[in-house]
């Protein structure tokens, strides 16, 4: 479903991603881990064109996305959840979720509302529909952000450190929602520092270090006996 060939991204003279190739199949849950500054987020942001690769190709559903002039076409098929939520503060929770489907997909207000309420039920926030984001806790905000992304009915969901900005006791509620989503067969790419979650939910682990893809392994073998020294050192520090 996603094919990445020799992806390189440079910011000025710094190479953030160095010649990365991998592929992700439909329904797979892939966790990207690695030290900060290793290029994890940049890799994720290249997948929905928030960053333009310096070279290399990204194919999604048989289309090379850098060639596609109309970025909205690609993006409406890929949901993204950010570390800092980025909910629209001047809109109610409900409006946050219905806005893009109504504006981009042109579906009717009543249909968008119905879908949004359904999604809010799924993430356990039905009673918050008319609330403004400022009144929500971090965990609630992130669950709304997930619902907002899902409202576009994307085929792929990207998560950029979705629990890193949360208080510890709110991490679980967000991870639970993501776990449920993984169980529905959604294709997910998750940048995370939650090793327990990655091990439990991911089908594959990509380990990035200094812009290079060092490992691409099943979680069990990655966490029990990583191949590279870099990964060993990284795991020793955090586990």
């Amino acid at each position, binding site marked *: 479903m996603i094919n990445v060939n020799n992806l390189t991204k440079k910011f000025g003279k710094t190479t953030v991603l160095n010649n990365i190739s991998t592929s992700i199949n439909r329904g797979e849950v892939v966790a990207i881990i690695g030290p900060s500054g290793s290029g994890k987020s940049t890799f994720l942001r290249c997948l929905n064109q928030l960053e333009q690769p310096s070279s290399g190709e990204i194919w999604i559903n048989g289309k090379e996305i850098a060639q596609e002039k109309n970025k909205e076409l690609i*993006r409406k098929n890929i949901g993204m959840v950010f570390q800092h939520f980025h909910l629209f503060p001047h809109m109610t929770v409900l409006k946050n979720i219905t806005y893009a489907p109504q504006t981009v997909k042109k579906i009717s207000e009543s249909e968008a509302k119905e879908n949004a309420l359904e999604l809010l039920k799924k993430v356990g926030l039905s009673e918050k529909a008319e609330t403004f984001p400022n009144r929500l806790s971090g965990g609630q905000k992130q669950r709304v952000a997930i619902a907002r992304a899902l409202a576009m009915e994307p085929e792929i969901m990207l998560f950029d450190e979705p629990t890193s900005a949360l208080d510890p006791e709110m991490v679980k509620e967000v991870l639970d929602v993501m776990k449920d989503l993984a169980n529905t067969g959604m294709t997910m790419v998750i940048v995370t520092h939650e090793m327990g979650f990655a091990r439990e939910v991911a089908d594959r682990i990509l380990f990035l270090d200094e812009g290079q893809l060092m490992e691409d392994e099943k979680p069990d073998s990655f966490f029990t006996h990583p191949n590279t020294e870099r990964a060993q050192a990284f795991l020793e520090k955090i586990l």
Partner: protein
Amino acid sequence: MNLDFSQIVPYIPFMLEGIWVTLKFVSVSILVGFILGTLLALCKITKLPFLKGFADAYTSIFRGTPLILQLMIIYFAVPQLTGYDISAFLSAVLAFGLNSAAYVSEIIRAGIMAVDRGQTEAAEALGVPYKDMMMHIILPQAIKNILPALMNEFITLTKESAIVSVIGYLDLMRRAQIVGADIYRNFEPLLFAGLIYWVMVFVLTQIGKVVERRLRYSD
């Protein structure tokens, strides 16, 4: 003290008419300035060098020369150049609207830049087109933050509107001068005009407060 307000009583209807005349061209000017200023602000934040250069040059010219000069060029010099006999009202709206746009564009640019970059990214990630993103997501948040600065600009414009009297437009200020010349007393009509300007600005301020409260509803 040589003060006699009874003498301006017959002129009060004449002067009050000036409120409407002033309000008419000030409100149109504010509207022109706001819309044009928004467009200029959008030009300034694009990556297209031509639009950016145009907007910067525009601001430089209209902010770098006196408003009264711009007004007189439009009213007196344009007919000489084009042969088109421009009305005082149109001249006033053009001068004040174009001038205000230069200031408003900087205010709005500041407002847009203060909106978290993540808002743009979230909208882009959802596939929202640029125009919708600006209209529904970025500008509403920007306007909320810059409302006090915008109100300042509108208040300044309302008061500075008094300089249209130099092109003979019968606004509130000009009427005060005419009354003064008529009765050989200047203090009373000028004080009366000052009071009316103050009331107009007071009302404008109250409107601003109501709008601000509305926009803060989501906090």
